[in-house]
């Protein structure tokens, strides 16, 4: 079977789903964050493959933006996690419980 768009998309979907799963079941903020990165990467993969099969480069430009933004997001996010850790000595979601209901 010839590898086509749908194969790439399948990978992308699975990657997205795995990321999602990670966000839901992992309790460590950092791992959750990594899972989010997986999701973004899934989008990147989809864009790149669409770009290839649509024969247009715009998708790749978008990927470029996404990577940049993701990097910025990671920086801010990790800084936050560090700040939290300093305050609370934890990077665990269950310890984020001062606000509820």
């Amino acid at each position, binding site marked *: 079977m010839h590898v086509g768009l749908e194969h790439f998309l399948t990978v992308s979907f699975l990657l997205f789903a795995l990321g999602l799963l990670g*966000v*839901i079941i992992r309790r460590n903020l950092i791992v*959750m964050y990594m899972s989010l990165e997986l999701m973004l990467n899934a989008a990147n993969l989809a864009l790149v493959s669409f770009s290839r099969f649509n024969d247009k480069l715009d998708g790749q430009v978008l990927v470029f933006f996404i990577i940049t933004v993701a990097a910025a997001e990671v920086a801010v996010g990790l800084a936050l996690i560090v700040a939290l850790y300093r305050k609370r000595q934890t990077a665990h979601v*269950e310890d*984020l*419980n001062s606000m*509820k*209901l």
Partner: protein
Amino acid sequence: MKHELFPWLILFLPLLSATVIALFTLRSKTISSLISIGAVVAGFVLTVLFISANGFHVNAETSKNWLSIGAETSKNWSSTDGITGLQVDFGLKLDALSLMMLLIVTGVGGLIHIYSYAYMDEDDSKARFFAFLSLFTFSMLGIVLSNNFLQMFIFWELVGVSSYLLIGFWYGKPSAGDAAKKAFITNRLGDFGFLLGILTIWGVLGSLNFGELQSIFAAHSATLLSAGVITIAGLLIFCGAVGKSAQFPLHVWLADAMEGPTPVSALIHAATMVAAGVYMLCRVFFLLNADALHVIAYIGGFTALLAALIAVQQNDIKRIIAYSTLSQLGYMVMAVGLNGQTAAMFHLTTHAFFKALLFLAAGSVILGMHHEQDIWHMGNLRKKMPITFITFLIGALALSGIPPFSGFYSKDSIFAQCLEQKNYLLFGVAALVAGLTAFYTFRLFFVVFFGKEKSDHAKHAHESSLVITVPLVVLAVFAAIGGFIGVVNYYGSQFTPDHETLTFVQQLMEPLKTPVPMCIGIAVALIGIFLAFSIYKNADTDPLPAKLGVLSTAMKNRFYFDEIYEATFIRAHDTIAAICGAIDRFLLEGFIIGIIRGGTDLSGRGLRLLQTGNLQTYAFLFVLGVALVLYFVLGK
């Protein structure tokens, strides 16, 4: 018609007096009472002047439009267009019926006013009393002069409320308050039927005016009088009379109403208010058909008997007279039911004289006895209160139907009417009641004025002042001669077109035309008096209860009507009210609102549980949301 303004003046003078007293002179007893007396006396004078100028048979109407909604529909009642308008006039109907009543109301009423001046002298609220009296007089005059149903209903209600005020005059006394309340509500029950009757008549004929209705009935008597709806309307209207004239089954208020000051009892419960029912029946007689009249006659007869029986075993001087009133009213209503409006009105008139007399005399006794009302605490008053004694005797004779006193003539005409209608059952009842009447009247008479003093008050009793005795004397004169001074003429000419005017002597001899009822009437009255004499001449206590046993207890307790009503009607209403109250409180207010409120609150609290504060849960819910939306839109 001369003096056109006079009837208006007669009507509104008492209102003016009431207003002036209420607004300005409440602080001055004397001025207030004089204003009030002046208004009613002026009314009497004006009435006399008016009658002497125009005679009794004016048959005139003056009216002003009072309320007008939509088109005039009464004129074209027979067309098939619906009723689209309501026209209510404020008008005065002047004919023999109303003018006679005017005379009675202002005349007897005037005497009662004068009597009250002295009777109420010690009361701090005398001014208020006279304001109420004036209001009452105004209302009563309004009923008498009304030319249409709604106006009559209006004054009907006003009479109800002014009697409420008067009965409850001594508001500090709980029993007075209760009695006033009872009178008002019972009257309202009757008015309920009355108003529905008015609505029914209006719904069918589109008019409220007596004159117009009468001419419609005259033109279409065959169809109209045989219609079921007219029977119903007649009976409903009769309900009004039942309430106001205290007929069975709404008779219960009258005796309690004796809680009011005695002049009030005299005014309301002898001369005027209770007479209003009978007057109204005569006024609208044209629309009562045979079926309705039948019911009316029997109700009247039954009331007469019932009240007489109760009166036999009462011990309160005013209550005895009150039940006697009831009984006499039963006579009148029965007479109306037997097509004898003339007889009814005749008896109404004479009754006004002698019953007012009896009440006022009783009032005089009560005053002499320092507000003691139980007859078994009195005794031997004839020497201490001679004028009262004589006038009371005249009243009692008139009430018992002893010739030549007025009561004899009027009662006789009712007997005659019974026989003329060949209603022997009611005749029998009437005769029995006549006997009972004589018996209880003289029971009262002997116990109060003969025998020995049964209390200290009785020993120190004294005759009342002139202001009190003069009205007694005047009324006594009329009670004595009322039967043959032409009253019956005026009524007769009103109700029976071919009525021939009788001369004085003819009037005097009138009962002889029908000797059977006359003889029976006199006989039973004498028997009654004799029985009373033999039993009560020197009795210290009432020997009857021992003889009558259970019956006596029943009589004493008014055949338990109050208790029956308490247990049925009032209980039922209270129960329904309790149920509604409970529904309102628990179901509507508590349960439903509680559920809505609690449900809202609970769902709020429940939903809030989603916000666990746990990031994991949030992420999960977020993804679940996405999944849901995806499924919702694309999953199908």
